[in-house]
């Protein structure tokens, strides 16, 4: 698809009033998507947004593209069918931590391993927003909610780690109000296959401020490890921290640069290494952001189409008469 210079962010906004709560992180994500689409040259008619159910899944209504607000947890399946049937369109899947990882975890697993060519944005606010605040599969242990009045006892899923275990070939992370979110989304769009992006999202109503340390302008730099392929892992306000691999413990550790330790001691990000991404997925005290993992590989919808062509080559022009007359037949006269 070529750059379409005529479209702007506003063109991607539908005429429906946005109905999220004031201050919801979803607004920023919507804006990032609406900014990114014209940038990557997407067209209105060739863009389809498919979602499940949840606050986040209202997303398609606010886009002026095609959209399908489906049922809870199943968006990956609808999207797979749609992409197979209608390969010319760009498919964006929107889901939440409940929609995508609770009821929909299995479909996500199979979408990721199949590597269908589409993008999936998982809005992780660590809560069920739409049903008014129950804990979700990404909520932390101890979380007090109406369904866990004494605190949740469920160990949370780490979405990015789950995706890597599932065999995902593009795994990235961003957050709602991040300036770089558009870049991450663009990278997922450019990837041939399933581009999985976890987006940390603030729910001011039911789970306010859980990512504040990370996303706050002041405190954020000390927690945000933005990854760049081939670059050493440096972060911090003054680029004064780094990440090193400790072979003895077989784990990553955060170090202060300066003194004995220089950039040369740091781990260089290799986005093609699944194990490294796995390590980065769940670091204590630091959140790895950007593209954690990217591996080119067979794209499901292409393979399906290729196989259909193969069948056409092998069996020739379909002839329904001939099909019905294949095998034993006999004539009664």
């Amino acid at each position, binding site marked *: 698809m070529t750059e379409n210079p005529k479209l702007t962010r506003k063109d991607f906004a539908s005429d429906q009033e946005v109905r999220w709560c004031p201050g919801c992180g979803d607004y920023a994500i919507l804006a990032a998507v609406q900014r990114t689409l014209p940038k990557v040259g997407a067209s209105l008619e060739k863009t389809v947004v498919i979602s499940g159910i949840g606050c986040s899944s209202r997303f398609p209504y606010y886009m002026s593209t095609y959209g399908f607000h489906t049922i809870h947890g*199943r968006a990956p399946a609808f999207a797979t069918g749609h992409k197979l049937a209608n390969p010319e369109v760009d498919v964006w899947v929107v889901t939440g931590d409940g929609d995508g990882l609770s009821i929909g975890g299995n479909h996500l697993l199979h979408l990721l391993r199949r590597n269908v060519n589409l993008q999936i944005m998982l809005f992780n606010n660590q809560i069920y927003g739409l049903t008014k605040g129950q804990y979700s599969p990404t909520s932390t242990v101890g979380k007090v909610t109406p369904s866990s009045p004494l605190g949740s006892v469920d160990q949370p899923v780490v979405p990015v780690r789950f995706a890597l275990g599932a065999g995902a070939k593009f795994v990235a992370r961003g957050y709602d109000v991040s300036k770089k979110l558009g870049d991450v989304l663009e990278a997922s769009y450019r990837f041939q296959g399933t581009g999985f992006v976890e987006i940390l999202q603030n729910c001011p109503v039911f789970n306010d401020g859980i990512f504040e340390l990370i996303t706050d302008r002041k405190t954020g730099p000390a927690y945000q490890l933005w990854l760049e392929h081939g670059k050493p892992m440096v972060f911090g306000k003054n680029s004064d921290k780094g990440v090193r691999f400790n072979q003895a413990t077989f784990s990553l550790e955060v170090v202060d640069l300066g003194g004995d330790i220089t950039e040369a001691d740091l781990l260089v990000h290799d986005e093609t290494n699944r194990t490294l991404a796995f390590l980065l997925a769940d670091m204590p005290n630091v959140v790895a952001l950007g593209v954690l993992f990217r591996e080119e590989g067979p794209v499901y919808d292409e393979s399906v189409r290729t196989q259909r062509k193969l069948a056409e080559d092998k069996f020739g022009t379909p002839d329904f008469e001939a099909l019905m007359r294949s095998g034993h037949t006999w004539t009664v006269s």
Partner: protein
Amino acid sequence: MTTPSTHLREDLDSVVIRFAGDSGDGMQLTGSQFTAATALMGNDLATFPDYPAEIRAPAGTTYGVSGFQIHFASIDIMTPGDAPDVLVAMNPAALKVNLDTLKRGGLCVVNTGAFTKGNLKKAGLEANPLEDGSLDPYRVLALDITKMTLEAVKEYGLGAKDGQRCKNMWTLGLMFWLFGRDRQPTVDWLKQKFKKKPVLADANIAALNAGHIYGESAEMPSGIGTYQVPRAELAPGRYRNIEGNQATAWGLVYGAKLAGLEVFYGSYPITPASSLLHHLAKLKHFGVTTFQAEDEIAAVCASVGASYGGQLGVTGTSGPGVALKAEAIGLAIGVELPLVVCDVQRGGPSTGMPTKTEQSDLLQAMWGRNGDAPLAVLAAATPGDCFYMAIEAVRIATKYMTPVILLTDGYLANGAEPWQIPDLSQFEPFPVNFRTDPEGFHPFVRDEDTLARAWAVPGTPELMHRIGGLEKHHDSGHISYDPNNHHKMTKVREAKIAGIQKDLPDAKVHLGEDSGELAVVGWGSTYGAIHQAVEQVRASGKRVSHVHLRHLSPFPPNLAALLSRFDEVMVPEMNNGMLDKVLRAEFGINAQGYNKISGQPFYIGELVAAIEARLAGKNPNQMYDAHGSAHGAEA
């Protein structure tokens, strides 16, 4: 139905043979080969494969018995027959399980070679039935087929195991001789099958011939000779055998062609629906995409996603899978996209009896969803009819933008019948018109006539729109919580489905007058058995008619009026009473069920008795419940 009598008789109108043996004995193959040869002889025929749920149950056990029944005749037949005239029992377990059903005086072919102590014990037999008089009521041909087979193939140097495997071909050879069938097609088939191992082909052919030769040359016990079943008078044309799932698969593909669409088949394997997936997976070059999903929910969702993308979304499964798909079918109803759901019914509830047939998903198909969620329901009557009903399902789904549930069952799915290959020119195309005109478009603008909404496929310029499962405003298509709008939309969804009725043929009286004492109303795979039973009862002068339904939601336009012209309505079903409920609910008529819930098709005899009981003012169910089916069968 004529029984081979104790005197040699050349001509028979109709014969029922049941092949029975261990799962490993190749009975299904034997049955299909006999079927193919029989079809070539010009007989009418019907078959009923009946095998265990285990892939390969331990040899010799009763639950490992695999059966294949074929009914062939010079007359028009419609069922695989009630009690067999001939039973082929390859081991003690097969004999034990099936002997009860054999007609008195029927022929029992037994492989004595398998009647070892061990096998008798595995079959749970205390005494040897060959010796304890159990076989006295029958004519018996007791042969050591195992030994004779090994003899016949010994020159090929196979191991004992492979050698023994040829037993079924020996037996087939004998049966070919008995009923005068041509061996050549089977010879050709064996050569093809064992192309890569010609020695196996040779050995099997040798066994086949040896069985035949045995018949030709051996001294047969008195009362056993060769029979001949003359050609049936079938409508002229080209014929083939067809199984229900194959016919459904072909009907879907051809229906889509008539609609100008490609097929997207999303499915998850489940008995007895899996072969729909297998058949369609072979038809990729016909524009078919098959998607083996991670589960039934994903399967239906992917299909709905494909329909949104402009293909014909189809999903197929059996009862437990339909239950899982209910929520997504509701969405397809809400967003009004075409979808065909094939429900190949099996014994329930729950996992139930996966390899047995039943008609117990009717109420689920009608009403098994949350909310007011009407859709169209169709049912095929015979294996070959699956082709026509699949096309009809596609027609209704695309014309009315609605999910359609097509009910078949395990018996149709795996049963074969000779099928006249249809003349394709008879089918009127019903091309889909995708919406492309932005003028006045919103996603829920409707065709005035059909009430179908516009189908606008993503990728189409200027028709961008959003759909979803929340209630939509009837006019703008936007989400709406307006109370009156919801009422209106519910009524429109109802009216759209009800309106399909205008587009349906009248219900046919398949036999008898369009009024009378009793209408016997059936649907689905019971067609043949009911038909023949009604025919028999009518022969005794009773005012009984047979009405068979292929459209269940909505019903055919004339149905209410038609049924009201009968004093009574009787509904035989292979379930505990469903269509009778629906008829009462819809028309308030006093329909009464006759119900067999045994995982087995109706026997004609049972139905005759039931109809007669009903005519005599009795409740046939009480009869059935007391005696059960297998034993009532000889009635």
